[in-house]
């Protein structure tokens, strides 16, 4: 058990790195997911199709393949994802700015993959708004945009919170794969590092790593359960 204390700094920095990429990926996925969701409810068929294809593609792929294309397909297309070295942001999230692009690639993979689920979570929120609300709005003479802005979207946010939260939890867990695609020092790679290269005993390390992930996922899950129960009561 002494590993947990001796190597506390290793666990802590692994945790910190995982937290960083999850934070960035969550923001990116929320933005991209919203864009895809807008595509999916837009009245223009090709855009709708694009949204649908996007969601169906990424929802049905193993994340491993997505990671692979981000880490090796992007270079083949001639990019190092340098557009992610956002001035200012790369000071806080130092890995974003380093010359090594793999953190950025991993970020892209997580964002692309998670965005598909974010889109579906948002859409499930829109679907949770009773159809009568939109009908009432239309029969008052509100236009499509007014309908969305004043009636549907304000209500869909609350219905989206729980599914969105679940998507974020899933994403945190998915981030465990980044260590296999060139990012060094995240929580899951730390496990590997300590046991196979560091020769530390397996069980305490496993406990330490588990605690690291559970700290991120369990409270968030408990919070969502509470929101869900409150919403169920309100309903």
């Amino acid at each position, binding site marked *: 058990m002494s590993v947990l204390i001796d190597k506390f700094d290793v666990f802590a920095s692994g945790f910190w790195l995982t937290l960083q990429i999850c934070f960035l990926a969550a923001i990116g996925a929320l933005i991209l997911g919203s864009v895809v969701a807008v595509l999916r409810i837009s009245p223009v068929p090709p855009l709708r199709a694009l949204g649908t294809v996007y969601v169906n593609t990424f929802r049905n792929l193993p994340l491993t393949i997505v990671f692979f294309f981000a880490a090796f397909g992007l270079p083949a297309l001639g990019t190092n994802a340098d557009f992610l070295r956002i001035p200012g942001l790369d000071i806080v999230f130092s890995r974003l700015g380093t010359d090594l692009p793999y953190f950025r690639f991993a970020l892209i993979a997580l964002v692309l993959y998670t965005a598909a689920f974010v889109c579906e979570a948002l859409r499930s929120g829109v679907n949770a708004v009773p159809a009568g609300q939109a009908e009432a709005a239309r029969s*008052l*003479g509100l*236009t499509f945009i007014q309908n969305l802005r004043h009636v549907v979207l304000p209500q869909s946010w609350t219905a989206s919170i729980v599914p969105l939260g679940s998507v974020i939890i899933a994403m945190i867990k998915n981030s465990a794969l980044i260590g296999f695609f060139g990012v060094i020092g995240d929580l899951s790679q730390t496990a590997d590092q300590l046991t196979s290269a560091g020769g530390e005993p397996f069980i305490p390390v496993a406990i330490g790593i588990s605690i690291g992930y559970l700290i991120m996922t369990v409270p968030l899950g408990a919070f969502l359960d509470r929101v869900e129960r409150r919403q169920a009561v309100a309903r």
Partner: protein
Amino acid sequence: MTTSEPLIVLESVNKWFGPLHVLDNVSLSVGRGEVVVVIGPSGSGKSTLCRTINRLEPITSGSITFDGQPLPAEGRALAKLRSEVGMVFQSFNLFAHKTILENVTLGPIKVRREKPAAARERGLALLDRVGIANQADKFPAQLSGGQQQRVAIARALAMQPKAMLFDEPTSALDPEMVGEVLDVMTSLAREGMTMVVVTHEMGFARHAANRVVFMADGQLVEDAPPTEFFANPRSERAKDFLSKILTH
């Protein structure tokens, strides 16, 4: 009370949902200030009829004119038409995230571009009229069903519509709340509002309607003044229906 040309005219309207013939060659005209009650068994197409009038459902063939104009197909013109036809739903459909007053003023402010202050004032007056001015700042979920439905009526009235459509406005209500909503509707009828009302409340049909229309299987089977209809229904189906509804 009917004056000059009718306000709403449906001519040979047909509506299919896939293979289902929901409106079968329906013709109906509703004069200005007239109150028409639509009755009929479940699934006979009453709601659909009601919804075609403000084009919530487009029709498959036939024509509908409102105030002398055919119903516009889309865009601003359609929005404008809808703002002139108030609609009240069975399940109220109040905007759950807005207060009572905001529900009533949303249309006037966003669609009719009224000044917020003026819209609020008129909104409060309307809420007063339906008897719930004191609830203006609550949210729909905090109100009883009867109160919510009265708000829905006020919301429709706030657009100063030329006609009002009601689709079973009382059938989701607890029995002791039916009365308060019917009272508001009856007073509207007295004041000369043109109304199409789908309902099972035979009392309302008897006392407030100018005409009763009976539908079955998508067809408009009978169309008569209430006294005549209830005393002496012509078709077998209407007789049968009335016997089921009125005995208990």
